[in-house]
């Protein structure tokens, strides 16, 4: 079928598109075009408040997307990240409130216990995901669909849908809403995560084996790579990063909410990974590109808001761009020759 379709298309435009993608990458070009275009249309766009807003949101998305990218590179899928963001948020807030009641005034302990509980429940979900995929051989899609549902349910049960308050001021004002050299703390957190993940992907055995497993599981087995451990690892990292995002979001907003993250965050993280060149076939993808793609998606959403595009219409753009990104990836893959 595909051969018929391509044969009918104008050859010239495909070749042109391909050469641009090959030389500088489509994503930076789109990003620049978007920024330049929006700056020309609406001066509000390059206002400081808007820029900080964009950076904050992009940072949160980038952290989740880095984890998602790792899972997809290994050949998996993590649908539970949005629900983990919500669960980590409410667990962190509730734990802080409880610790504050038990040890009033001990801010360090309160914050540490809350953060540990948030990260801990993320890790727990990730380990369950990884265990089911690696040991029970259930597909990642199904497993994380299940844990997404369960995790979201637990989040709602804990809070009954009411935002959880009672966190120390130093956590909210001193950390979540604070700025360092004019930038929100979330930006530094994201940069740290991206740098760490780049290191993991390029310089560690774990990162290399994740590429190998995603590239060809059977070849990895024959090469003596232990598959299960590394698959569990990818899901654990993904969930922990989602939990970290939940904690950052909680600190920023000042309350733990079961409505954080959710399907939207999950979809966006997958979109960011895919647009950022992570192949759904596994074995290909770099987190720094995924981070740029998260920035691009955030700016796109922001632009659509500033242009007063109906919010119900916005997901349509996301969908179109995602499909176009995968289509371009396939096109460039097909044109490669063997030597």
């Amino acid at each position, binding site marked *: 079928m595909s*051969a*018929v379709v391509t*044969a009918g298309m104008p050859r010239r435009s495909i070749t042109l598109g391909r050469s641009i993608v090959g030389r500088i990458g489509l994503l930076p070009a789109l990003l620049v075009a978007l920024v330049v275009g929006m700056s020309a249309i609406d001066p509000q766009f390059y206002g400081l408040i808007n820029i900080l807003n964009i950076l904050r949101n992009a940072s949160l998305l980038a952290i989740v997307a880095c984890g998602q990218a790792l899972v997809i590179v290994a050949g998996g899928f993590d649908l539970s990240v949005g629900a983990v963001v919500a669960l980590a948020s409410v667990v962190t807030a509730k734990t802080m409130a409880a610790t504050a009641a038990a040890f009033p005034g001990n801010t360090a302990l309160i914050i540490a216990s809350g953060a540990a509980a948030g990260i801990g429940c993320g890790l727990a979900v990730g380990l369950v995901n990884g265990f089911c995929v690696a040991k029970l051989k259930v597909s990642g899609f199904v497993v994380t669909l299940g844990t997404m549902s369960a995790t979201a349910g637990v989040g709602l049960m804990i809070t009954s849908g009411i935002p959880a308050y009672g966190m120390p001021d130093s956590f909210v004002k001193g950390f979540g809403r604070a700025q360092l050299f004019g930038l929100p703390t979330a930006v530094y957190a994201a940069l740290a995560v991206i740098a760490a993940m780049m290191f993991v992907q*390029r*310089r*560690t*055995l*774990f990162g*290399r*084996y994740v*590429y*190998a497993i*995603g*590239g*060809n599981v*059977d*070849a*990895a*087995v*024959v*090469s*003596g*790579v*232990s598959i299960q451990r590394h698959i569990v690892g990818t899901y654990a990292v993904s969930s922990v990063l989602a939990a970290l995002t939940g904690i950052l979001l909680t600190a920023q907003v000042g309350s733990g909410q079961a409505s954080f993250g959710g399907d939207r965050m999950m979809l966006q993280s997958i979109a960011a990974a895919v647009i950022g060149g992570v*192949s759904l*076939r*596994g*074995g*290909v993808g770099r987190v720094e590109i995924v981070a740029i793609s998260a920035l691009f998606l955030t700016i796109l959403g922001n632009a659509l808001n500033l242009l007063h595009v109906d919010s119900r219409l916005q997901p349509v753009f996301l969908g179109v761009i995602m499909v176009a990104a995968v289509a371009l990836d396939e096109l460039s893959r097909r*044109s*490669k*020759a*063997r*030597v």
Partner: protein
Amino acid sequence: MDLDADLKPAEPLLALRGISKRFTGVRALDRVDLDVHAGELHVLFGENGAGKSTLINVVSGTFPPDEGTFHFGGEDIRHLTPQRARSIGISPVFQEFSLVPSLTVEENLFLGREVTRGGILHAREMRKRATALIDELGFDLDPSQRVDDLSRAHQQMTEIAKALLGRVRLLILDEPTASLTERETSRLFELIARLKSQNVGLIYVSHRMREIRALADRVTVLRDGRHIRTLDAATSTDSELVELMTGRKIDLLFPTITHKPDKVMVDVENLTLADGSVRDVNFHARAGEITGVAGLVGCGKSELIRAIYGIEPIVSGTIRIDGLPYDFPAPRRSLRNGVAYFPANRVAEGLALSRPIRENASMTVLDLPAFARFGVLRQAVERTTIQRVMEQLQLRPPNIERTAGALSGGNRQKVMLGRALTRELSVFLFDEPSVGIDVGAKLEVYEFMKRLVEAGAGVIVVSSELPEVLALSNRLYVMHHGRIAAELTGAEKTEQNVLASFFREHLVAEVA
């Protein structure tokens, strides 16, 4: 299989003139001419990367040529698609199968041209025609079996049957015997003779001289995407063909290997596998010699060495490596014990095609402290080591950052061999080492084994190609139905004896 009667015998069935095809930067075909007459078997001969695959892909409509003319049955053909090619009677059988693994043989045969009545599948008619076709071909195939349950040989038969369903005027066979046994191969040859007598034209890609001798009417030699010469098969010699193909002289296909059998490196006692593919096998291999394992497809010979390496579950029996008992084999531990395995299917089990050569070659060695400390890779060491190893193996082009998916069969095999040179190893298990690679690359693999053996390593070669195991091995095991049927050394090591041991087993089985 009806033919246009008005077609003059002098006019070729297929006439290509000046066909060129470029892929991003690489000129895969450069003004190639090809004529195939009805009733002729035309062999395409050339090394990997010579442009054979590209040419048959152009003929079967997978992608259009950049320039050149294409005449089929006297008609000028433009904008050919795979569907159109099939409908005008061009039927390709590719090395990489075009079968849907989750569908049955019959469903695959009719895929895209199902017999329907008012949009509803006509199952009985299809079953009837599938059975008739398989019977006519003499293949041992069950139309209701799922393709992923079949062996590679049976998948190959399905692929051939699929190509012959319907009206065929030009059949393209790309190394069709690569996974067939001798018996199945002779069936295929009979079939080819029948097709020729029915005036079907054939394009046949093969590296095997014996097949070319047995089948070919004419041979077209390609090199570096260019048409070198077309010769009459009857008047050309083997060395002439090989010389034209490689552009240099090759005297002997198999190198002379000096075997110096030393201590027993691999010792297997009463080995039985969980799936019953190997039963009560006693086997040993020494350092300094090549131990061959011959047998038909599915006889358990691959499973035997896979079990030693640790990728087939064992129920009973003992394995000793270098005298030490080796329980519960696993790939990582095998590598640490100095045992390496080279899988038959390099795409399925060997390489991560989306990853660069460097990562693929170093995949088996990263557990060593020289390459990674505390989980952190030492990239400089990795790069220089792999660069050196691939230079040693003469990788062309010598760029280790290319992705493995962009490589030809011969270069892929080199990446696999590269793994052997990255760490200290003493036992090498080769599973069908020369499947899918050309004569030049085969020679390099054989030379590689020669160097290993003469350096004192133990090499085990499992192969369905009898001449190969006969020539390479010092001691040869013959397997049949999961058991060792014979162990041949020295003068006993002949083709007749190997075939006789299959036959003897058959008799024993029939008597029992």
